[in-house]
């Protein structure tokens, strides 16, 4: 890939400290903030939690809640003009697919993810994105990596 400004950058967000770093990096690389797509992936709803059983929670409400959360979060961080989207499913798969569908030319992802036993059981989202995506992936290292 060239180091010229990118026209479409996908940034998976889980609202952790590392997410903010990824947004800043993407803004530096993009030619315009509106070309930065922030993506939050939600797991499919279960069938047994009280909220679901009583019909108080559904994907429409969850999506709206996350979008509201995005607005507050971005306002807090002083980030303007970026886009944000909510997806449902397996994070690695959804992120790569979204990038392909939106002709992204870069994915910026923090490598913080799971550690310890969860890493052995699940692998990291970043690993999966690298494997599945058709565009270049920039993996940011975590600060406290040991």
């Amino acid at each position, binding site marked *: 890939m060239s180091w010229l400004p990118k026209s479409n950058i996908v940034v998976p967000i889980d609202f952790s400290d590392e997410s903010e770093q990824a947004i800043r990096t993407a803004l530096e690389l993009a030619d315009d903030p509106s070309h930065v797509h922030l993506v939050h992936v939600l797991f499919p709803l279960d069938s047994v939690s009280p909220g679901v*059983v*009583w019909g108080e*929670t559904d994907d429409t409400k969850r999506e709206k809640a996350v979008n509201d959360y995005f607005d507050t979060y971005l306002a807090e961080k002083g980030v303007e003009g970026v886009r944000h989207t909510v997806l449902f499913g397996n994070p690695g798969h959804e992120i790569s697919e979204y990038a392909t569908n939106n002709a992204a030319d870069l994915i910026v992802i923090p490598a913080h993810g799971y550690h310890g036993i969860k890493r052995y059981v699940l692998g990291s989202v970043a690993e999966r994105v690298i494997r599945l995506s058709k565009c270049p992936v920039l993996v940011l290292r975590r600060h406290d990596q040991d």
Partner: protein
Amino acid sequence: MIQQRFFWILAVLVAVWQSGTASPSYAQDAGDPTVAAEPADSEATAEGAESESSDTNQANEESEPTASGDAAAAADDPPEEPAGFFRSAEKQVDNAFGEFNGFLASWMFYPVFGFPLAVLWLIIGAIFFTVRMKFINLRGFKHAILVTAGKYDDPEDVGEVSHFQALTAALSATVGLGNIAGVAIAVSVGGPGATFWMILAGLLGMSSKFTECTLGQKYREVRPDGRIMGGAMFYLSKGLSEMGMAPLGKFLAIFFAILCIGGSFGGGNAFQVNQSLNAVQETIPFLEQNRWLYGLIMTVLVGIVIIGGIRRIAKTAEKIVPFMCGVYVLAALAILLMNFSEIPSAIGTIVAGAFNPDAMYGGFIGVLVQGFRRAAFSNEAGVGSAAIAHSAAKTDYPVREGIVALLEPFVDTVVVCTMTALVIVITGAYESPELAVYRDSNNGAALTSNAMAAQITGFQYVLAIAVMLFAYSTMISWSYYGERCWAYLFGDRASMSYRIVFLVFVFLGSIVSSTNVLDFGDLMILGMAFPNILGVLLLSGKVKTDLDDYWNRYKSGEFTRSS
């Protein structure tokens, strides 16, 4: 920091293994007759699983309440030959369960002054919380009803469900076969006197439930999508970390999560299948010889909800359960009315049995332990599981949901369990010679079914439907508890693996002997009290401060009622 959690999980497993192998002394010594898996039995099984000895039969026999505790006599029972491949496979699975139980029982039910350790711990916790919270179980009762009725609901509060919905969700996990079968077991093993201690345990348990559910709300996490994650694992890790005990908190949280997963496979699942099948086969004898068939049907029915994602079924089951619960209580009341003249003498028997028990019921402590144990198994107070459901309630005041939660042991134990117990006592089912076969095999569901059918003709059919629904909704609710703990340990993405293992246990519940399923459920669910009550004791100061503040504001009329 990396792999820290992995380390803790390993540490817990090693500690459990060590304690199990180090002390080969079993709870049976404590005069606690339902712990069936014997060391001798386990060893024999390990060495000669293929030999024709029928360990299931032995296990069942040994759980019999023998005053002398002479388990050897029970082995005289002629062994039953396993017939066919399925039968012998069933036996092997059952034996494996028995061994595992014996190993866990060696430390969880370690006898202290005649009390199995886990039961003593629950009693200490319940008394402490009742005194520390100045009898919130009594003084909070009226407020609990008003809050549940929606008088203080604010739809704008953070959370997923109303107070009423959270209480119903938690109740669907607690009202299950523990209320029907478990209580019958308590009365047949501990005698009528166990009823008294069970009711007392229910009343004291209200305070435990209040304290743990308040903490569940206080330390819950709100995810960006508005979903709530809470429960003992969160208050143990976050709460104790606030108090400068982060490593202990993490250890207890992981310990709790492991046991809760076990509880969701045992008491919240296999026990429900097993005992509901016992009641159902009273009406469909075909199932008696083909128990696996019922297991398979239940597996499919649970599977289409938890894996297939058919939510309508879970919703329907959840809403029918309160109705069935009402039918059950009314039927029990009808039986009490039909035997109106015997009520005073039944109460006399219960009180006398509680303080001057017949030696055959294991003496004063034996009876008390039965009452507390079956009450805790049924209402889960002090166990910490319900905090997972209650944390989803919409409220800005953790104490308010805690107060709602104290209704749970009341409804479950003081009302529903007491009904079962009174029926068993009044009808004499706990001592009737014809029903001895059910008592000996811990088949509590059949005992209740027979006792009720003798009074109301055909009631066994109603009960069969009721218990299937109770079992089903309890399993669905417990799968949620287990899955939250699983996700806590392994991440949200690992849910599917949990669901598959859960279904395996649904099936196992149908083929493993009642005694082994009961013991496994007990060990896991009562075991959860170790990490939970320890953490809640340490955090009780915070609850006390919050409660005092809330109560002052409530009394001063600061909280407005909606109507």
